[in-house]
């Protein structure tokens, strides 16, 4: 893989972000709103609930991790949508750029934008609500890694769906984090879910992160085997999503979908 085409994809996103404050808005404002909203809810709950339960680390921490996951996924899909919106596929793909380089550029863009959002969220949650990320100990890094890998996989999957079905399919992609959230127990233990939802939850890597986070905050242990399983699942998602994207791309090249991709080419 050559790095200059990868950097070209990142540079394009940097220019877009720098030239348009509207694109910075979701990176800054939505995460700030989420942290403030859930921060005040945790403050309120702390005053009415049994003393001893750490709402800040449990609920606000969960919001922070979940928002990070969403930012990673949207970091990929939004960068991809920029090429959809500007009808840039012919310019981009009629070059030496390979699919691996294109995807690597989207992933690198997402790493940068989601890291920026994460730092913003941690700073705000710490400054205003006293959240300490140290409450999760050394597990914070693998938690973030699992969420990051899963977000990347879902982002690539979402991009493939839009490439296959057309620009209008972007409306199927935006709600994906919301659709996944009830199954992964962001705010409640998986035991709360009915059996069929638990079965799905066990196949979703983020479920293990939120179970582990709650276990650690409450002073319990989080089995390393669960962490390994979650990481393995997330890595598998990336492989599957990448294979799916490549297959869709080849289909688009074979059928002419890529060459005539336009504003409303949904099939």
């Amino acid at each position: 893989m050559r790095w200059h085409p990868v950097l070209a994809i990142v540079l394009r996103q940097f220019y877009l972000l720098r030239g348009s404050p509207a694109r910075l808005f979701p990176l800054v404002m939505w995460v700030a709103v989420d942290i403030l909203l859930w921060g005040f809810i945790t403050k309120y709950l702390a005053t009415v609930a049994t003393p001893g339960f750490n709402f800040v680390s449990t609920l606000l921490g969960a919001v922070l991790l979940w928002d990070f996951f969403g930012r990673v996924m949207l970091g990929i899909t939004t960068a991809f949508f920029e090429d959809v919106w500007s009808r840039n596929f012919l310019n981009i793909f009629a070059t030496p750029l390979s699919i691996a380089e294109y995807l690597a550029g989207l992933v690198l863009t997402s790493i940068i934008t989601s890291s920026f959002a994460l730092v913003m969220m941690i700073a705000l949650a710490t400054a205003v609500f006293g959240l300490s990320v140290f409450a999760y100990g050394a597990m914070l890094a693998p938690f973030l890694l699992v969420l990051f890998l899963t977000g990347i996989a879902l982002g690539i999957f979402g991009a493939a769906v839009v490439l296959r079905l057309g620009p209008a399919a972007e409306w199927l992609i935006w709600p994906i984090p919301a659709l996944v959230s009830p199954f992964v127990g962001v705010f409640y233990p998986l035991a709360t879910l009915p059996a069929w939802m638990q079965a799905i939850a066990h196949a979703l890597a983020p479920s293990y992160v939120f179970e582990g986070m709650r276990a650690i905050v409450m002073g319990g242990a989080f089995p390393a085997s669960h962490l390994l399983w979650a990481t393995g699942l997330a890595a598998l998602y990336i492989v599957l999503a990448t294979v799916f994207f490549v297959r869709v791309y080849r289909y688009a090249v074979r059928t002419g979908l890529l060459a005539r991709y336009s504003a409303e080419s949904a099939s």
Partner: protein
Amino acid sequence: MAPVLSVSALRKTFGDKVAVDGVSFEVGHNEIVGLLGPNGAGKTTTINMILGVLEPTAGRIQIEGRDVATQRAQALACTNFTAVYAPLPGNLTVYQNLRVFALIYDVKNSAARIQELLEQFDLVAFRNVKCGLLSSGEQARAALAKAMLNRPRLLLLDEPTASLDPSKAREIRATIRALARRDGVGVLWTSHNMVEVQEVCDRVLFLSRGAILLEGDPKTLPGEHGKGSLEDLFVSVAREPLTFEAG
């Protein structure tokens, strides 16, 4: 010397519809070849296959001896294009677009190259203007600057002067002719302006219903078929392709 572009037995079908039917041709160094034909003749389909964004059903495309199917990156590294239906993203400035594509093509000393192209295509004043705010003629020049960034050996130009005023169109034609002569670039040029084609092209290929019906020198070809001008010949090919197929 091997041709810049070699297309052999190229075929593309979409279900039952045959868009390109066994097309073979070459474009040599220093040569400007006009790809002509009515709407739906298969010109854009052919160009898309050369650019690697559409997979042929059968046939082979080689650019500088590199097979587009198996050596895509190497083949496209020495190719570039401009087309009226593929403008540069309107939300980036002219400079930003050129910078991004310079990275994709790994252009050495890209700052100097971009400046050179901005001057060559009279775009210095629009360097920091978003492409979406440019007039169609200015956008066409920006797209041409992009097409020259990597000093391509093969240049595909799909109606490159369609949005330009006569003065700018003449300058662009002169620039591209000089480029082909000086740097040995092979150019595949599509246009519906037959006067332009006659002026700029060394050879023309008439496509109709996915197949090449006629090929030759645009200055002598009309006379060879009893027509007064290239435009008359174009109209005849478009209206009565069977006459030429039989011939």
